[in-house]
């Protein structure tokens, strides 16, 4: 692996990727290695199967959904910039990100809202911008242990939706979703330290 590329310069479009994601050179290099390792038959892109082969993902209750979020809009190929772009959401928030940022520039990928959006789209399967009761139920079914019955799950789902639902449409919009988590330190909770 190391012999294949040991230098960041080997990464295609390294500068634009860095600008977009804010990753450090070292992190990018590390991710590039990882990308190449996952792409075991050297296609130059990753397919769903490549990610599904990561053992622990298979047992992760949200594993499939997370893999799906690497393949937006039904695409089948994941190239390196796309790979990094998804992971960039989990970059810790630096002081610089909040400080001297040009307001005209788009929000960095690791902003609070983008982190939340990533989580939100895991719930919102039909992409209608709302977590319906049914979608909530599906997530709960994945997360809550088997020992809870379906009816119980339904009542939990009901209550969860109700709790967050402010406009009374029986579903949780993204804003309501963000509001329900406003007290939580998302920047901290949705960051991975090594992804500087």
């Amino acid at each position: 692996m190391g012999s294949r590329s040991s230098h960041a310069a080997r990464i295609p479009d390294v500068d634009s990727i860095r600008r977009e994601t804010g990753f450090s050179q070292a992190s990018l290099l590390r991710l590039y290695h990882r990308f190449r390792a996952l792409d075991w038959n050297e296609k130059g892109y990753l397919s769903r199967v490549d990610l599904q082969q990561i053992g622990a993902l298979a047992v992760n209750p949200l594993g499939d959904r997370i893999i799906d979020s690497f393949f937006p809009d039904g695409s089948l190929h994941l190239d390196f910039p796309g790979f990094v772009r998804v992971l960039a959401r989990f970059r810790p928030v630096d002081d610089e990100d909040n400080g001297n940022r040009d307001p005209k520039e788009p929000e960095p990928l690791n902003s609070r809202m983008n982190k939340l959006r990533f989580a939100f789209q895991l719930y919102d399967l039909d992409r209608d911008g709302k977590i319906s009761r049914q979608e909530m139920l599906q997530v709960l079914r994945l997360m809550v242990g088997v020992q809870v019955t379906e009816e119980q799950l339904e009542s939990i789902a009901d209550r969860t939706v109700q709790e967050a639902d402010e406009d009374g449409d029986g579903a949780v919009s993204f804003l309501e979703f963000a509001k329900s988590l406003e007290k939580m330190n998302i920047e901290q909770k949705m960051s991975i330290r090594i992804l500087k």
Partner: protein
Amino acid sequence: MLRAALPLLGLPLAGAGATEEPTQEPGSPGEPPPGLALFRWQWHEVEAPYLVALWILVASLAKIVFHLSRKVTSLVPESCLLILLGLVLGGIVLAVAKKAEYQLEPGTFFLFLLPPIVLDSGYFMPSRLFFDNLGAILTYAVVGTLWNAFTTGAALWGLQQAGLVAPRVQAGLLDFLLFGSLISAVDPVAVLAVFEEVHVNETLFIIVFGESLLNDAVTVVLYKVCNSFVEMGSANVQATDYLKGVASLFVVSLGGAAVGLVFAFLLALTTRFTKRVRIIEPLLVFLLAYAAYLTAEMASLSAILAVTMCGLGCKKYVEANISHKSRTAVKYTMKTLASCAETIIFMLLGISAVDSSKWAWDSGLVLGTLFFILFFRALGVVLQTWVLNQFRLVPLDKIDQVVMSYGGLRGAVAFALVILLDRTKIPAKDYFVATTIVVVFFTVIVQGLTIKPLVKWLKVKRSEHHKPTLNQELHEHTFDHILAAVEDVVGHHGYHYWRDRWEQFDKKYLSQLLMRRSAYRIRDQIWDVYYRLNIRDAISFVDQGGHVLSSTGLTLPSMPSRNSVAETSVTNLLRESGSGACLDLQVIDTVRSGRDREDAVMHHLLCGGLYKPRYRKDGMANTEATNGKPPRDLGFQDTAAVILTVESEEEEDSDSSETEKEDDEGIIFVARATSEVLQEGKVSGSLEVCPSPRIIPPSPTCAEKELPWKSGQGDLAVYVSSETTKIVPVDMQTGWNQSISSLESLASPPCTQAPAMTRLPPRSLVTEEPQAPLNLPSDLRPSFAFPPSLAKAGRSHSESSADIPQQQELQPLMGHEDHTHLSPGTANSHWCIQFNRGGRL
């Protein structure tokens, strides 16, 4: 401490001749034995426990008095007040007895006073937060304590070499290192006492507090190693001894932790089997935790670490296993014991300081120590934080560091350790004692007093308490899974990865082993939050008066929609079923007052909206286990009739187990017919119908399956019920069940078997409604004729699923008023009134 409080507390008793050494013969020894004494003082027989009780009483009263004034306690930490009170009391004792009494004795402290505090803090430690910050906590606890001990000891020795400490303090480098090791450890009791009132943010608190707990291992090792080095004499210390010292650090800490975990395992395993002896559950928790402490102490491992790990490790499983009441009992007993011990420790610390015979003052040593512990603590924190921040996701900022440095309080552990020193080996002991007392007093009083304003002034992020919400809980789990997945994708096996692994291991093996099956749900955190929110709603609802009918606009945050459905449906039923279509409800409507109606509605609301899920689960489990015992309701309806004696026994059996289950679930109101109702039931029983309606918490899964059978029987009998329901706390349920089942066994040939009825309206309507389709009774009639065995078989899954269409057919048969208000799908689950015959009398 246990010895003679007579001078102080025994003053009123002086007339009985109680002196310092209690006389062997109470009363006057000179007189001849007076035969039968009418009045005898037996002070010396009760002396020790009496004094302990008195001291605890004094401490508690002091606490009450302090808290009479909110102003004082908001400014001055309780620990300061207690120390000052101790000083005053000590002064009084000294003045009266002419010698110091009731000191904080190391034995008492380590064996009795410290364990409850540590257990309390370990058991209620927010484990997630603790493990999230484990790296930092361990660093400060191990590196920080070592650093403090060595730098302080060495600096003091340097001070002595520089001639700033009076030469009469005879101590070498090793003595100073020993002193440094005991004075350097941050004290859990002091930290807890002060920080609990300050309310800094959780991360900061857990770091300082976790450090104070975990550094015990380091302190113990350092203290023991230095102590034995001093006793051996520095000349005889070999290189291997240093190695042994380092090794013993691992032995003591890891050994202590291991002892704690073993006992945690035992404790969890034991509580798994306490189902029938709920009453000893709280005791088990304390016993095994204390056993962990004593075992570790016996093996000279870190006892504090053992208890901490025991509490931390067992909590999840124990909480799931023991009953709700036991949980409350454990919580309050633990808090009471801890607070009691803490109070006594600080008070005795104050008293002990008065004893000047142990003192030897040296200004250089005292001032030097004070300066060095503050300085090196700050320096150590800054250096370690700098290193840690390279690895931390959320760096600790400067303000955090200030609070951490300043929050390094010393306390009773240091004092007890210094008292334990051997004067023959360490000639400077008296100086060390005095210095320790000053340091403890300084940190507890001065730093304790100033830390609150400091925190305010520095604008340290405070902890904010907010209610848990389901959303937060759910999303937090989502985040955990996301992060674990991302770590997988990135190929970095970090914290999230291992936590995920651990949770899977726990789910697969540990929980299976350590939790009783019925307790599974509690350990699911999302479920747990849901459950607790429901409980809270129910309680607040009841607290608010709980008048359902009067508060039409009532919306519980939990399930407004359900409430409204349940409410409208029930009230409407009550109102409209007066037509005679539904005799049961008619009776309720006409005979009973509004109060009863409210009770009934309230019950439906509570059981339908709030408690339903748990009972469903029970019902489900029961149905699944049909081949074993029939569920209670089934037992009443179709088994009791045929094999009366046997089955009724079984009913009782299943009843009791059911009750136990329910007992597990906290406050549950179960609507039951009252005994007065039973009387009426007798009257109506002469109609060959035995309707003693029992509204039990719904278990729709089985109840729904029951429906066809019930309705089948229902058309055979006219149900006249003159009962109302009352809401009876679950405690009284057993009694009720027993009376019911005894009635049951007296009763009735099969034809009078009144079915357990899930749904009131359908049955009555089937019976009464003229427009009911004719095919329905004919459909259902045969089912009634089934022998019990077949009827039982009907409860199997395959058939019950076949029943569902039938049941749906029944739906339209409900009265229109019912139908309009209960949507078919939800109605079942909302309120299921289960009717049971009262027995033919």
